[in-house]
């Protein structure tokens, strides 16, 4: 299990500096703002969870950071250099696994290495082993369950040895048990590899169990409503812990769900 750390050199985690970011889309001749003056920093190695009402623009923010889109105004700097496009230092894991159906599990995991013409079966094998799918290397994606497919997507992301992992609600469509397992796995990989991580989620509990810091956004156009560090020890990171419960109540209130259970 620990072999992967040996085959892949440890990389410096990425830092982010986001400054007065504004973004929007044109629809029916009118500009619809999506992000409203968003500024925050991510220190190297931080695990930041982004919470907010559905459709508020969190995913758009991730796409901007990934370099898949260009912001209307404001800047995003990675390690002090402005982001102009996608790059292998920032790997995105999407809500859908989006595996290529014409590639086997193994070939899907090797995608990032293929792109840079650095195929290495050993790295791929190690990554598959890490997510417990070494026996399914030659399966086709349509033969996998939802949880297995998302694990392959995780392995495909990790193979790139990212300095920042960008997670766009990666567990949103999984059943609750698979979700619990994968939350543990993501946290473990983050601890072992030490990359920076940004995760959009709808699940307040998930954010509290995984992240070192939680940003709460307003409804669209997204503004930062609160920015709080989560100083919980490993033992406290448990669903029934009173700290977690108190924080959850607090954050749900900010999201406008104080009266719901």
């Amino acid at each position: 299990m620990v072999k992967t750390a040996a085959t892949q050199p440890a990389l410096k985690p990425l830092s982010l500096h986001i400054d007065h970011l504004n973004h929007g889309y044109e629809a029916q001749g009118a500009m619809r703002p999506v992000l409203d003056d968003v500024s925050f920093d991510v220190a190297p190695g931080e695990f930041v969870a982004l919470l907010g009402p559905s459709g508020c623009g969190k995913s758009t923010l991730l796409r901007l950071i990934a370099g898949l889109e260009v912001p209307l105004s404001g800047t995003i700097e990675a390690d002090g250099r402005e982001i102009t496009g996608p790059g292998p230092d920032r790997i995105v894991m999407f809500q859908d696994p989006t595996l290529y159906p014409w590639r086997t599990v193994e070939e899907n995991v090797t995608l990032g290495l293929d792109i840079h013409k650095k195929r290495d079966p050993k790295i791929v094998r190690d990554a598959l082993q890490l997510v417990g799918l070494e026996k399914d290397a030659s399966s086709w994606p349509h033969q996998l369950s939802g949880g297995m497919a998302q694990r392959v997507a995780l392995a495909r992301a990790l193979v790139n040895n990212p300095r920042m992992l960008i997670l766009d609600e990666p567990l949103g469509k999984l059943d609750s048990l698979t979700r619990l397992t994968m939350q543990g796995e993501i946290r473990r990989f983050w601890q072992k590899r030490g990359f920076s991580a940004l995760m959009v989620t709808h699940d307040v509990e998930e954010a509290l169990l995984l992240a070192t810091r939680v940003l709460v956004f307003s409804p669209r156009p997204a503004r930062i409503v609160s920015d709080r560090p989560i100083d919980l020890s490993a033992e406290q990171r448990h669903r029934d812990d009173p700290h977690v419960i108190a924080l959850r109540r607090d954050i749900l209130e900010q999201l406008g769900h104080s009266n719901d259970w």
Partner: protein
Amino acid sequence: MSRVTSAQKAEQPSFKALLWRWGAGPCWALAALLTWWLPDGDDFPDTTLLAGLFLACGVVLLVLAALKRLRYWAPWSAVLGLGLGAWEVVQAKFLLLPRPFFGTPQDLLDVFLTDWKRLGDSLLHSLLLLLIGYGIGACVGIAVGMALGRSLRFRYWVRPIMRVIGPLPPVALLPLAFVIMPSTRLAGEALMALSAGFPVAVLTWSGVAAVDPAYYDVARTMGAKDRFLVLRVALPAATPQIFVGLFMGLGASFSMLVVAEMLGVKSGLGFYMQWAQGWAAYPNMYAALLVMALMCTSLMTLLFKLRDYVLRWQKDGLKW
């Protein structure tokens, strides 16, 4: 064939299955007997040889039945034997259908025995003409379709041309092509490429247009450039549609092939048929027709095999 039905799985096949299996050989033997025993209605060649052939088929079928290799095709084999026997009796023995439009089985056999060289040569010419024209059309079609799907400027300039020329039956261009191309053969090639290329281009385009944008995002976030996105993402994602185009294009080239050979190209099966008809050599025409049918179905089968291999990642597909 790979599926095992409950009847095949059972230890003891049903009486009906056994009847088909062991009846197929005797059906051919009966055809052989009638052929040999009843007197010919006119002076036909190769009657005894035909009877021998029927008998040989019967024996082979009996051997297959004994080896338990004759299952799925047993009913077909039996009925085919009876049908050929009936044809022989109706036409060669009692001359019931108008001649010479309807030949006899031995007439057809005689054509293959005496004219196999010219038939084979025609088949070769047709195949060559078809494969070159279709091959060029398919490759150009895929390239044009990809460009239509990926490049706005290319789409701006090429789409109007496609819209005007595409729906026109390529056959309509035949007279023009014979005039402007240096040889009828080249004209045939060009039109076959056109008739195959159009459906391939359109289907490739629609396949590329339908590619899930998330597939591009995944590769782009890992740093993929345009070349990778086109060749390693868009192209494989569009292959199911491309194959639909390839099948349509193959069918279109078949008809283009026949028309080109009948109207200008002085070789090939179409030319042979035209010639046979001109001399009222109807058995020769039937023989050429049979060879052409076999050629077309073989090429289709080949393309299906290729598709099944390339698209083996799909859950399930149509079986040919």
